[in-house]
């Protein structure tokens, strides 16, 4: 009887109310189902490209490439982000989402699941091998595009749900700055909704009518421009929630404090401003955009380096102040004092390390001339595997190890922590080998998105073969790690011992004054609109007015 009562008390102290926890967990688990399927497709892709195996006749390289890209980069990330943000918003606004927010959260989930199912079925039926950028004039089944549109609309509804929670909090706490996590969640969704409007327009007004045969041709240049209007901020939609974990959760996990509230908020405002008007740096080789407009986008892209370096500084400062308090001396003595055996810190930390060459590679990609060295080579594939596949994914893994037990009222046991450390090491080594091989081959000119070929035994292409095998081996390690990840999460969801798991939310050491202007949204949304009109207004108008002959659809598979 006493034990039962203790248990009851423990559960009642869960950081998130049960209804909200259920919603968050529903998003997180869809994310990890997609992750498992994507990891399988990715491993097969690596083995085929590495020349180690051949696919059966009923499937092909480009089909599994599309499955891997869509499921990993679009489905896994979006579902996890929405689920994580819901939990954090609930945690920092009293422990639960209010009625309307909760309902909107479930409507968003249903739309996103239906959209995902439509996209996945069309890919499995080999009717949508258009790769995850769904570039025209490659044409997929209309259901693929409708599915993608539903996914985006579902995420908007989730965003509106967060906005309603934010409004409620502001009403109840007049004159106060919002909690840091909530502020970052709102910034991320403002950025996401603005960034996805053009891709929704592309899908609704260009791709769906063209795919249904209602319009015979498509304006390829315009469709690609609208795609990259969304495509680059998509990267920040992945990164900003990872930064939220870095800025807010990691300080608490390592027993330290948020370094600077103002700096953290300013970094997010800068990301909101400069992650959208930069898409042409993905289109530097496109002949339809003049050099002047490309230069404006490249300049704005390089400004994003500032919030990234502010983040790097903040992280080191958090580690150093915390490490010194624990007795670390000398220039780097504090480094040894970090909790190296706690996977909640270790996995995101390794992700941060990957982000250093990832960021450096990003500056290379965005530089007009040297983009010519790496454009459309497998270097780019290596680049986004160390950014989204390592920095972001490993942060999401690290978050999952405490988020899932916090949502299910269970605990991360010592054994589960050890298994998670092994999983992290496998992922890190696999990603290191695979991406190093990809970067090296890319610099030698090996193209991305290409099935296994020796180019009629050309000596240059034969020189890539050893690297391709290393890449495949890395892919194998990543697959083992992915299986481990799912097993650990199954354990944490259904079998781990019941108990309290902390939802780590860091705070500043002393009360810090934050400039009010950081929370005046009309100012920042107005500035975003100005920058977007400056960078995109004229080029898009020109592409609509002086459109080149449109293209009929192509199905190359």
């Amino acid at each position, binding site marked *: 009887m006493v034990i039962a009562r203790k248990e009851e008390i423990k559960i009642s102290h869960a950081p998130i109310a049960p209804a909200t926890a259920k919603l968050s967990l529903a998003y997180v688990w869809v994310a990890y189902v997609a992750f498992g399927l994507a990891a399988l497709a990715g491993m097969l892709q690596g083995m085929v490209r590495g020349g180690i195996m051949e696919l059966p006749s009923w499937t092909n390289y480009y089909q599994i490439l599309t499955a891997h890209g869509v499921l990993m980069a679009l489905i896994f990330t979006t579902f996890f982000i929405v689920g994580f943000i819901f939990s954090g918003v609930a945690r920092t606004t009293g422990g639960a989402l209010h009625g309307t927010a909760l309902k909107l959260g479930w409507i968003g989930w249903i739309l996103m699941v239906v959209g995902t199912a439509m996209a996945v079925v069309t890919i499995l039926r080999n009717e949508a091998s258009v790769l995850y950028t769904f570039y025209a004039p490659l044409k997929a089944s209309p259901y693929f595009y409708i599915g993608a549109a539903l996914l985006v609309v579902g995420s908007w509804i989730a965003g509106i749900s967060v906005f309603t929670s934010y409004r409620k909090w502001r009403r109840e706490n007049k004159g106060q700055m919002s909690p840091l996590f909530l502020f970052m969640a709102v910034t991320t969704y403002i950025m996401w909704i603005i960034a996805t409007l053009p891709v929704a327009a592309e899908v609704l007004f260009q791709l769906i009518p063209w795919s249904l045969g209602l319009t015979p041709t498509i304006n390829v240049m315009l469709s690609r421009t609208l795609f990259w209007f969304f495509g680059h901020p998509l990267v920040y939609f992945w990164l900003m929630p990872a930064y939220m974990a870095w800025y807010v959760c990691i300080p608490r996990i390592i027993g330290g404090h948020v370094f600077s509230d103002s700096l953290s908020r300013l970094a997010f405002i800068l990301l909101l401003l400069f992650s959208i008007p930069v898409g042409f740096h993905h289109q530097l080789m496109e002949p339809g955009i003049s050099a002047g407009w490309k230069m404006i986008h490249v300049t704005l892209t390089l400004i994003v380096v500032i919030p990234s370096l502010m983040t790097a*500084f903040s992280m*080191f*400062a958090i*580690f*150093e102040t915390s490490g010194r308090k624990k007795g670390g001396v000398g220039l780097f003595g504090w480094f040894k004092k970090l909790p190296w055996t706690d996977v909640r810190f270790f996995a995101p930390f390794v992700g941060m390390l990957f982000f250093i*060459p990832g960021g*450096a590679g990003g500056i*290379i990609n965005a530089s007009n001339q040297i983009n*010519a060295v*790496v454009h459309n080579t497998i270097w780019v594939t290596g680049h986004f595997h160390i950014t989204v596949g390592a920095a972001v994914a490993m942060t999401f893994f690290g978050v999952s190890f405490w988020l899932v037990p916090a949502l299910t009222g269970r605990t991360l046991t010592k054994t589960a922590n050890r298994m998670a450390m092994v999983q992290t090491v496998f992922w890190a080594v696999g990603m290191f080998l695979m991406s190093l091989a990809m970067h090296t081959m890319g610099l030698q000119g090996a193209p991305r998105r290409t099935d296994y070929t020796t180019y009629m035994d050309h000596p240059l292409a034969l020189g890539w073969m050893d690297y391709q095998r290393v890449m495949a081996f890395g892919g194998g390690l990543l697959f083992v790690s992915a299986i481990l990840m799912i097993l650990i999460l199954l354990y944490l969801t259904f079998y781990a011992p019941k108990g309290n798991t902390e939802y780590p939310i860091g705070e500043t050491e002393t009360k810090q004054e934050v400039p009010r202007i950081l929370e005046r949204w009309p100012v920042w949304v107005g500035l975003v609109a100005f920058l977007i009109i400056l960078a995109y207004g004229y080029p898009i108008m020109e592409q609509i007015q002086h459109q080149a002959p449109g293209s009929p659809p192509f199905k190359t598979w």
Partner: protein
Amino acid sequence: METQTNTPGQTKKSKQEKTQPEENLKGTFAAVLIVGGIILLSWFSVFGLFLERA
């Protein structure tokens, strides 16, 4: 004379400095310099490759 006069804000600041000594962030400074070095080294390596192939 004017430059030596403390405004109320400055007085408050100097009081704070007495109670809260500046945190030692030498390691952070060194670490961000290393990150900057990696960025520059990578960029110039690929730029060198571009010039070599141009």
